[in-house]
């Protein structure tokens, strides 16, 4: 009987906490803050200005000068990331052309398991205008529950520097206007 109770307890643990057992973190949760993600400040002046960052060291995403940051977790090797890259570029253009959101919504991409060379190749292949960062050793990918790609996370940043995740989406989008509407509503920008 004791053996059976132990078995059931073990079973519950396995189903309830597989991520703990495997050393993985869970996927980003709405309402929670982002895990600590440190990125290198871009060398590119245009990207540095776009993000409102100064210096040449590292930064954390809530330091970006914006009310909302959309993070795309992508991979150069992922066929859906390739297919949807033009739509994400269109989203960037829509935001940049919008008087309301140009300074309030920024986009960055993080290349899961991609080297700097691979991220740069992806950027050139699709003429991606927003900043992309390599996550070669998958350390960021591990912190966000090893999500499939593409995966989008929208984070609202408060004036005091705190942040909370307002939207997540697995998979790409075909209609940038609808996606932007969703982000605007979920983040309370309008």
């Amino acid at each position, binding site marked *: 009987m004791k*053996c*059976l109770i*132990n*078995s059931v307890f*073990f*079973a519950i643990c*396995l*189903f309830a906490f*597989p*991520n703990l*057992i*495997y050393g*993985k973190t869970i996927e980003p949760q709405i309402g929670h803050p982002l895990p600590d993600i440190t990125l290198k400040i871009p060398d590119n002046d245009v990207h540095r200005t776009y993000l409102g960052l100064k210096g040449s060291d590292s930064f954390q995403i809530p330091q970006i000068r914006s009310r909302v940051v959309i993070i795309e*977790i*992508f*991979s*150069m*090797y*992922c*066929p*859906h*990331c*390739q*297919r949807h890259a033009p739509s994400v570029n269109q989203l960037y253009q829509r935001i940049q052309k919008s008087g309301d959101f140009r300074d309030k919504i920024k986009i960055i991409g993080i*290349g*899961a*398991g*991609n*080297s700097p*060379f*691979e991220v740069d*190749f*992806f950027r050139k*292949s699709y003429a991606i205008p927003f900043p992309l960062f390599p*996550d070669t050793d*998958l350390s960021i*990918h591990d912190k966000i*529950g*090893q*999500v*499939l*790609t*593409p*995966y989008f996370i929208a984070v609202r940043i408060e004036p005091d520097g705190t942040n909370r995740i307002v939207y997540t989406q*697995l*998979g790409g989008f075909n209609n940038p206007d609808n996606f932007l509407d969703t982000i605007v509503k979920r983040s309370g920008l309008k």
Partner: protein
Amino acid sequence: MKRYILLSSILIFAVLLISAGTAMGLSDAYKGSIYDPGKLKPTDSVLKVKAGEPAPDFTLPSIQGKQISLRQFRGEKNVVLSFIPAAWTPVCSDQWPGYNLAKPFFEQHDAVLLGISVDNIPTLFAWTLQMGDLWFDVLSDFWPHGAVSDKFGILRSDGVAERALFIIDKQGIITFTHVSDINVRPDLKLIVTELEKLR
């Protein structure tokens, strides 16, 4: 006790399935279809070829129904061979879509790419369909099982190939060999750097 072991085994297997398919930033193109074999012994074979030697010739069937021989590129094209261990596994499933995007690098260096796996044709057909339109030939080294992989010395003891790259120049000479840790995708830069040396 037997019941405990059985229940535990079933649950561990279930959790492995739940957590499958997340390594290396895997695409959602495959969600729900990828079998994760877990972390494997990094390499499990001994190379039988080396740079500077003529590449062993072979003829293999492609998923497009052609018979492709290495010798048909002699004097015409440089050849990159990309051996992957198995279809429907995490790292392999994103490797060739990356090479699909990298087509310009191969063209710039007058090179063709041949993707090779020990899986059979129907399996490779179904799997590569998820990747979109591949510009390169995908060849099956299924029968005699893994014979070409074995010629190159990259057939593992469990019957799958290593994750390996070979570059062969227009004279049929091997210029580059690379056997990766099977759990890790090689950096695209590796291929580009080696192709640039062929100029």
